[in-house]
C-alpha cells in the first residue's frame, strides 16, 4: 500500500459539509413529503410512510452527522514539484496523481458557504479533467494556486 502522505484539509470543512448536507436534507425532505402525500392519497399502508420517514432520517444522520467527519478525515493532498497527489473517499478510497507537466490551469473557487468560514477550494485542470481540492484556508489556497502555476510552468519548460 502506498504511504499515506500529504496534508489534511481544513477541519472547518466538516462544518461546511454539514451545512450542505442539511440543505440537501431539506430538499430531499420536501421530495419525500411530496411522495408521502401522493402515497397517502392512494391510501398506501402506514408502514410505507414509516419507511419513507426512516429513509429520510437515515439520510440526515449520514449526511449531516457521519459522512462529513469521515470525508474530512480521509482527505489528503500533497503538492510536490513534479506532481499533485490527491487522496479521498469514504466508501471507496481514490488516489489521483497528476503530473505537474499536465496541469493546464488552476482556479481558486469560493462559494458563499466556504466564504463564511474563510475557506476556498482549488480546482486543477488538465486537458482531460478537473480535480478539486476542497476547503482549504483561503490564503493557503491562494498561495498553493500560485505555487502550482509556477511549478507547472517550470515543469513545462523542462519537458520541452
Amino acid at each position, binding site marked *: 500500500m*502506498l504511504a499515506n502522505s500529504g496534508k489534511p484539509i481544513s477541519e472547518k470543512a466538516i462544518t461546511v459539509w454539514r451545512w450542505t448536507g442539511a440543505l440537501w436534507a431539506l430538499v430531499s425532505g420536501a421530495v419525500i413529503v411530496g411522495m408521502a402525500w401522493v402515497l397517502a392519497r392512494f391510501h398506501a399502508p402506514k408502514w410505507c410512510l414509516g419507511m419513507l420517514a426512516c429513509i429520510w432520517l437515515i439520510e440526515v444522520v449520514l449526511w449531516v452527522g457521519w459522512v462529513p467527519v469521515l470525508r474530512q478525515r480521509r482527505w489528503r493532498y500533497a503538492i510536490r514539484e*513534479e506532481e499533485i497527489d490527491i487522496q479521498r473517499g469514504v466508501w471507496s478510497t*481514490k488516489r*489521483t*496523481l497528476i503530473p505537474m507537466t*499536465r496541469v493546464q490551469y488552476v482556479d481558486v473557487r469560493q462559494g458563499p458557504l466556504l466564504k463564511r468560514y474563510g475557506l476556498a477550494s482549488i480546482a486543477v485542470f488538465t486537458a*482531460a479533467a478537473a480535480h478539486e481540492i476542497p476547503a482549504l484556508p483561503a490564503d493557503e489556497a491562494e498561495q498553493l494556486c500560485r505555487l502550482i502555476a509556477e511549478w507547472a510552468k517550470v515543469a513545462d519548460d523542462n519537458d520541452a
Partner: protein
Amino acid sequence: MTRKAKRRLHPIAIMAGVGKELKNMIAPLLVIVAAGSRHGFSWNDILVPLAALIYTLVMGVLSWVRFTYEWDDSCLVVEEGVFVRKKRSIPLERIHGISITEGIWQRIAGVVQVHVETPGNVPGEAEVILRAIARKEARALQQCVERAKNRNGHVNEPEAAAHRSLSPLFTLTMKEIWIASLTSGGALGVVAALCAFLSQFSDFIPYEALVRDIQSTWNGHGRRYIALLILSILLAAYGVAIVQNMIRYASFVVRKQEDTIVIARGWLERKAVSVPVDRVQGVVIHESWLRRFFGYASVSIIHAGGALDGGPSGEVVLCPLVKKHRIVPIVQACLPEYRLDVPFCPLPQRAKSRYMLRPLYWLTIPVGVAAYMERPWGAALLLVLPLAAWIGARRYRAAGWALSSKQLSLRSGWFRRTTAHLFKRHVQSLEIETTWWQRKKQLATISASVMPVGTYSRVVDVDERDADLIYRWLQGERSNET
C-alpha cells in the same frame, strides 16, 4: 506563400449548406403539415413550411456571401456571420487536424469540404468548416499547416521526408468490408434513430391506443405476430446498418505522409482524415466477441482533437477490421514509438471470484422476480445467473496490464475486449480506487485518462502492489527517491 486575397467558397456550398439545414428541418416540418392537415387541407398549412424554406434559402445565400477565408504562412482567417460578423484567425501550427470530405454536392462541383480542427473547449466552436473549396487549395492548406508545424520545432527529421512512403499501409478488401459491416453493432443505433424520428410524430400518431392494441393482442393469441414484427424491425435495422457501414468503409486506405497519418474512406462521400503523429494520444484495439472468433480486431487511435471521424470524440478508426497478426506491423509503420506486443500481466487469482460475483449483484433480484412472476417456464431465466458468472470469469481472464518505461497498456472487457496503449507523456492523470471490499482482498482499480476530456481506460481488481507500481511509474523522479 503570400497572403491571398479574401476568397469565397465555391457556390455549391450554398446547396450543401441549405441541403444540410433542410435535412434537419424536414421531420418537424412534416409534423406541422401533417398535424395541420388532419382536418382537411388548407393553404394556410403550407405557409409555415414555405416561410421556413424561403428563410433557409435566403440565409444560405447570405451566409455564403458573408463567408470569406484566407490564409498565409502563419494564420488561417475566416470571417462569417450574416448579422453578427465573426472574424476568427487561427495560427496554423495550432491546427489539430484536417479532414477532407467529398459529399454528394461537393462531388458534383468537383470540390472538397475541409474540416479544420482547432483548439477550444466548446464542442462545435472548436472547428471551422470550409464547405466547398478546390481540391488543390485544400492540399495547399494542408501543406501550409505542416510547414508551420515543422518551423515551430515540432518533430521534423529530414530523412523522414526522404523516404516517405505514399504506398498504402492498410486497405480493406471487399470481403473484409463485408465482414466489418456484418459484425459491427450498428443496428441499435439505427433503431435509436428510428425511435427518435417516430417520437417527432407523437402528436398525431395515437401511440397510447397503439400500446393498448398491442397489449390486447399480446394477451390474446397475437404474441407470435408481435414477436415477428419486432424481429423483422430489428432485421431491417441490421440491414440498414450493414449498408451504412459498407458505404462508410468502402475503399478504406491508410497512408503515411511524413509525420501525418492520412485515413481516406467512403463511397458516396469520400472522406480523408489526417492526424499528425505527435497529436496521437494512444492506440486502442477493440476486439468484439464476434470478431475475435474469426481472428479479427479493429484498431483506433486516440486523437487530441474533436471527432474528426464522426464517431465518438477523440477516437479515429485506423483499421475497421484487421487480422490480428497484421496489427503490430501496421501500427509500427504508422506510430513507430508504440510497442503493442508487450507481455500482459494477469490479475491475481483472488480477483476471479469478484469478477464472477459482480454481474450477480444487480442481476439476481430482477431475474429472481421475473422468474417468480412467469412461474412455470420463467424459471428457465435462472440459467442467466450461471451464464453471467461465466462471462465474469471470461472478463477476469481477459483483463490485464503491462508496463514499460514509457508505456502503459491496459486491457479489459470480454464482449468487447479493449486494449489501450498509452504513452507516459500523454497520461494526464492516474487514479487508484479501492472500495472497502477491494481493500479486504488487497485489490485496486486503476484508471488512466488521456487528452480529450472524458477519455480514460481502466482495469478493475489489479493487485494492490501492482497498482502502486504503476502509480510510482508516473511519479516524478524526485519523489521516487524519497
